[in-house]
């Protein structure tokens, strides 16, 4: 999941892996400073998010990735493969149009299952801002989902 979140920020799989690796290594080096009274995953995810943002600052984000990113789930169901590719691509395109903070908020909340308070702490923003970002991010992404589902139904 750390890799997915890094990918949501960087929009490039190689960069996402580099950032996730850097995040894990940073966490590994800082593990002695981890407060065991707090949840581990948000702590780790915050480090990965920071690593991805740092990498994004250092590198120009390359163009959207190719079709080699079909998920294992869609490979298992050839009848839906084309649709899954299409949906995945459209969602990634829609994500790319969102401001980074909205993108992160909706991915961390809906895809990764973090509480809004945890996301607020991770991103260093008020919880109300997370709610607003999730609201705006969802609106764009749900529109894509609806459109693709309607096309599938036709």
């Amino acid at each position, binding site marked *: 999941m750390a890799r997915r979140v890094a990918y949501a920020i960087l929009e490039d799989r190689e960069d996402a892996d580099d950032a996730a690796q850097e995040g894990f290594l940073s966490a590994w080096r800082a593990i002695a400073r981890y407060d065991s009274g707090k949840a581990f995953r948000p702590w780790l995810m915050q480090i990965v998010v920071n690593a991805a943002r740092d990498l994004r600052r250092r590198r120009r984000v390359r163009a959207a990735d190719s079709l080699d990113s079909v998920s294992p789930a869609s490979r298992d169901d050839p009848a839906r493969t084309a649709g899954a590719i299409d949906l995945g691509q459209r969602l990634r395109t829609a994500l790319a149009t969102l401001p980074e903070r909205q993108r992160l908020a*909706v991915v961390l909340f809906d895809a990764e299952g973090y509480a809004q308070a945890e996301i607020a702490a991770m991103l260093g923003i008020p919880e109300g801002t997370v709610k607003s970002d999730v609201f705006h991010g969802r609106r764009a992404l*749900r529109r894509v989902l609806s459109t693709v589902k309607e096309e599938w139904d036709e």
Partner: protein
Amino acid sequence: MSEHSPFDSAPDAELGTALREALAMPFGETFVNRVRARMRQSPARSWDEELAGWFWQGLAAASLVTVLAGWGLNTVAPADEADTPAQTASVASQLFEGQMPGANVLLASASSTESP
């Protein structure tokens, strides 16, 4: 999906699943192996542990010089303090060896495809 309001405070399961698939990262095992390899290359001690190590090495060297100079201050470093650097350094090594929770939890997050 249309039954969801944008104001929902609960995660949207359908959107979440679609996003996880859209953002799926292949070669999880390869990634974990790559990070493990980097961890092995990375220093076993963090910078503060490293500095603590330098401190104790410096203190040991100073004590040795003092003793050699004939000052006889052989009570400078009590035995319980002398154990501290080894204990500190072992945190990272124990973690890496899997004797403490941490490394596996860390790497499990890399290969996880499920939501928490």
